[in-house]
């Protein structure tokens, strides 16, 4: 039963991942990426990590994907029906590199013994993960807040538009010339 579920979800994730990089339209890509994120959330449930699964849906599928879709719509890229692939040489090189990565990663897993996972663990519960975050990983947790602060300041600094009161310093094209 679990195996069947895993296979269905796993194949969905792989398929959605392939579609992300194979479709022309960024909006379609973004939607397939959302599907992949949901699939991963389901896998986290199978892996006994309900808290991470919930975060996956909220942060990735919720916040991050909405941001992506919002920007794609804002920039009006959805009408573009071109492939926008890299040139032949670079593309071939890229595929070779990607295949190499896959081979290395698969070779790395040689010699793994897979012990039966304990069934009655509450390791993935919000309480258990929260305790780990606030006790052992207190410092990274605080540094993560610094990171988010950087993102806020950086985005505001980069996207701040000229305000009307600053107009005289800026363009000077509004009828005064």
């Amino acid at each position, binding site marked *: 039963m679990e195996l069947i579920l895993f296979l269905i979800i796993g194949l969905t994730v792989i398929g959605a991942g392939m579609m992300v990089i194979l479709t022309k339209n960024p909006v379609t890509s973004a939607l397939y990426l959302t599907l992949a994120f949901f699939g991963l959330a389901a896998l986290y449930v199978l892996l006994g990590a309900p808290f991470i699964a919930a975060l996956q849906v909220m942060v990735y599928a919720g916040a991050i994907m909405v941001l992506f879709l919002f920007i794609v719509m804002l920039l009006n890229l959805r009408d573009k029906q071109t492939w926008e692939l890299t040139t032949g040489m670079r593309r071939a090189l890229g595929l070779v590199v990607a295949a190499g990565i896959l081979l290395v990663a698969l070779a790395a897993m040689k*010699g793994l013994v897979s012990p039966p996972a304990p069934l009655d663990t509450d390791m993935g519960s919000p309480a258990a993960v929260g305790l780990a975050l606030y006790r052992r990983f207190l410092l990274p947790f605080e540094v993560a807040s610094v990171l988010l602060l950087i993102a806020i300041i950086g985005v505001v*600094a980069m996207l701040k538009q*000229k305000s009307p009161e600053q107009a005289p310093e800026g363009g000077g094209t509004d009828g005064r010339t």
Partner: protein
Amino acid sequence: MAFSYSDLFVIAPEIILTALALVVIFVELAWPRCEAALQAICAVGILLAGAAAAISLGVQTTAGFGSASFLNGMVAADGFSVFLKVILATIALLIVLISRSYFSNAPNQPTENIGEQKSASLVSRLRHSDYYSLILLTTVGMMVLASATDLVALFIGLETMSVGLYCLAGIRFERVRSSESALKYLLLGAFASAFLLFGIALIYGATNGATNFKAIVDALQGSFSSGISLLEPAPAMKGTPLLLAGIGFLLIGLLFKIAAVPFHFWSPDVYQGAPTPVTAFMSAGPKAAALAVFIRLFGWVLPGLSTVWAPMLWLIAALTMTVGNIIALAQTDVKRMLAYSSIAHAGYLLLAILAAGNPQVREAAAAGMLFYLTIYYLMNIGAFAVVYIINRARENSDYQIGDYYGLAAKQPWVAGVLALCLISLAGIPPTAGFFSKLYVFSAAVKAGYIGLVVIAVLNSVVSVYYYLRLVVYMYMRPLEKPLAARLTPTTAVALMICTIGILGLGLLPGGLMKQAQTGAAQIELPVPTVE
């Protein structure tokens, strides 16, 4: 206990810098357009942070915390990390000093294309506080990265640093070059981060759930404290495929951050496009922080596997210095030339990592690296500061070498500082650059890398050509275009610090080297106190 007051001492510099970043934002809200005050606040705060780092070390040694572990083994509080925090604080201080009036009266650069003309209407209404607080917060990330002794702290520190740098690179968003530089840095940096994270995941699996450096060491020695091993026992000191692949992916991520050769292609473009004070910051800070964690990881955690990683790193080091120097020869753009020169210097610094793989000389190698990093940021920031001054005076959008013809006649002091920095970068004796190379190369010779040191010395000889070419142009060629360089007082102070550092440490390198040796001798790997 999960947390105690002594933990606060250890991260005092980070706390001060974070608080300072917030203060800076609020000060500008209250008193807009008062850059001098902001700069003064930043400078005082950074000095405080540097002092706090030094004091925390003093408190520890006198109170005898000794090898106690702080913050659950996330970061080290040893002399090595304190030395680096002082280096990083000084870098931030110099960058704050040379950034004076970067945003207030930017030169009117000639527009390059339609896009740029259009964007002239979105002239930035940047507040200085955005820039200064980003510098401070990025420095926090670097400090965490430099002192990390846990893969989780390493990852979050590295990302904090990187995201801060992406923002800083793109902060002149009304200039197409700044935006391009940020995009390039972001896409390639995030790509490298994904490799780093995958490497961390594989190491986590291969060491049976260890992320703490000390726990990784224990796991490698086969003494699993608890749980079942996921791996069949591997032949000692050869490592399992999973671990080796993990180290490989991690290595790619770290080599990208220091711009070593197969992963260097981003750096010239990013360095050239980013605002010059930010370029100075990028060339000094991330390199110091990433190399610190690099040497701790490879010299103190993974030396047993050096038979595996050393040959790889040997090749990368040789390629990095050779490619960096040879391409630098062909550059006519000064900022780009300095970018390639900083790639070459990353190659010399990799020698220290290689030498650290040998347990007998690893302390000498770490001390040599600390000394090298100190001198490196002084000469690099000095050089970029002069490039920045000249570029503003010329009002060009590029940094052609022709701008420097006859500089010495018109601006003897500025030209003198640049010449000193370049001579030191080339490693010519009375300057400190000579000793920095000497210490690192001698550690490498002791570790048995004679062939590589020969390559490094040959490379240094090649590099003399392009460094001195610029010096010759400044002193021998006639002035081509009029020049009205304006030196703000704070920039003058920064240049003075660089000059005194390069000359002083060149004549009397002993004191700093002794400090570096004390710091390197104290490198330790703390263990987590709570599970």
